[in-house]
């Protein structure tokens, strides 16, 4: 499979569809331990991303990721906007001017995204945030790439690890973001951001698998 700008753009469109279909789920996850807007925020952002891509797909995978980043930053707001925005921006920079993404580049982009999210938000593993999905996803992606997996394989490994990482947030007491105000009462709930991170990675993986198949 190729992974040129068009493929990346298609993967992003697929992710936007997933966000749209999971909007209410993400809103409802954000209700007991937040402010009931995570699905609305990402929905608004990814709708704008699709509109931006409809207006014209940039000429490189990194260019696509940069459009995603800037659009999310300027339309999402909340905690998710700057965090996902920074993540995509760092991924874009990691990818640079490459015309196609290979497995190693995808793993490097994920690592850069995670570093960006941590740099911006200051969360550590176990704080009950997106980081709890992203960090294991990056580790799994790197080891898959190291083991010779292709792009679809790297993304599948990342998505699997992210899903597990997201689930791991349920018993945690939040130490960052809005859920942290609840203290002990935040335990027993899935973190909406970890869930959305896992959904996005699954969407990318499914798209890569589909293109590959």
């Amino acid at each position: 499979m190729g992974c040129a700008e068009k493929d990346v753009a298609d993967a992003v469109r697929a992710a936007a569809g997933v966000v749209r279909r999971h909007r209410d789920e993400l809103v409802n996850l954000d209700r007991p331990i937040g402010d009931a807007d995570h699905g609305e925020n990402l929905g608004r952002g990814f709708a704008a991303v699709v509109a931006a891509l409809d207006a014209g797909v940039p000429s490189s995978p990194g260019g696509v990721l940069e459009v995603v980043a800037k659009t999310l930053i300027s339309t999402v707001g909340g905690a998710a906007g700057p965090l996902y925005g920074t993540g995509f921006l760092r991924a874009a920079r990691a990818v640079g001017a490459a015309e196609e993404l290979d497995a190693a580049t995808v793993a490097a982009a994920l690592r850069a995204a995670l570093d960006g999210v941590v740099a911006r938000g200051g969360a550590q593993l176990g704080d009950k945030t997106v980081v709890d999905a992203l960090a294991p996803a990056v580790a799994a992606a790197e080891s898959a790439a190291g083991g010779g997996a292709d792009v679809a394989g790297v993304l599948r490994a990342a998505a699997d690890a992210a899903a597990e990482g997201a689930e791991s947030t349920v018993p945690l007491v939040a130490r960052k973001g809005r859920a942290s105000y609840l203290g002990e009462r935040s335990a027993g709930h899935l973190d909406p951001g970890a869930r959305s991170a896992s959904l996005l990675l699954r969407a990318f993986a499914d798209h890569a698998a589909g293109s590959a198949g």
Partner: protein
Amino acid sequence: MKKIINDPGTVVLDALRGMALAHPDLLRVREDPAVIVRAEAPVPRKVAIVSGGGSGHEPLHGGFVGHGMLDAACPGAVFTSPTPDQVAAAVSLTDGGVGTLLIVKNYTGDVLNFETAAELAAADGVEVRTVVIGDDVAVRDSLHTAGRRGVGGTVLLEKIVGAAAERGASLETCEELAHRVLDRVRSMGLALTSCTVPHVGEPTFALGEDEMEVGIGIHGEPGRRRVPVGTADDAVRHLLDPILEDMPLGEGDRVLLFTNSTGGTPLIELYVAHGVAERLLAERGVRVERRLVGPYVTSLEMQGMSLTLLKLDDELVELWDAPVSTAALRWGI
């Protein structure tokens, strides 16, 4: 969901348009990105005071745009912090050449988005300082968490710093003053009912017929605990006690008492609560020298209230009393 709106997707923009029509003498509204700007902005050689946050807390912040208070407010989606673009636009629309103070309530989203905006503005050559408000004693203060939320103290800080800026205070002076206010202001709130976010369509949380949520956040975030609804005396004590535990006040201390409705609580109840709070403070020898009573930091139609106490000194009293002319606060002018 029973609301007087046309579409949850356009409610913020529709309200901004109505607001612009309602107050043509005070403010203008830019739509994309959305910013509420003081009518006479930019005011040359005045430090610009810019704030913002999620919508649904009206009159916060747009209702405080005008002479003696804010130069611009950035309204996010309902209960969602604004984007960096909005803040950057606000900074550039109000830059009077002597710097901008960003007033940010301490929520992860607000802090991150304003941070990005500050970087953009600095790149544009505007000197920007940021003050982050965390006055909600319901949240335990800690470096390992998101820290205290910014709530009612925001209004008092915006008024006082706005007055100083209007008189020509420098950016440093405004920033110092803001920190002085922060050191001396504490708040706490409670809710009797939930609010319903338009894009959600259902109440954010459920409370039993006889329960109230003490320590509620202004976005309907759960608070410290649920307790039975009691008397107004009980309610006020639930708010005042933790404030005074955090910031002890006694004989001879001078304060501004801000009794705030979260929206759905009517003025008749708010005055009852205000009377109780004044009585309890008087019993401790605390002197209430200034007051603000009304719905100023709301959470849509949520029934509930918050109390904010600001420890006064002569300078703060003078700045509080200084003329202000905004949609929600107006005196001396």
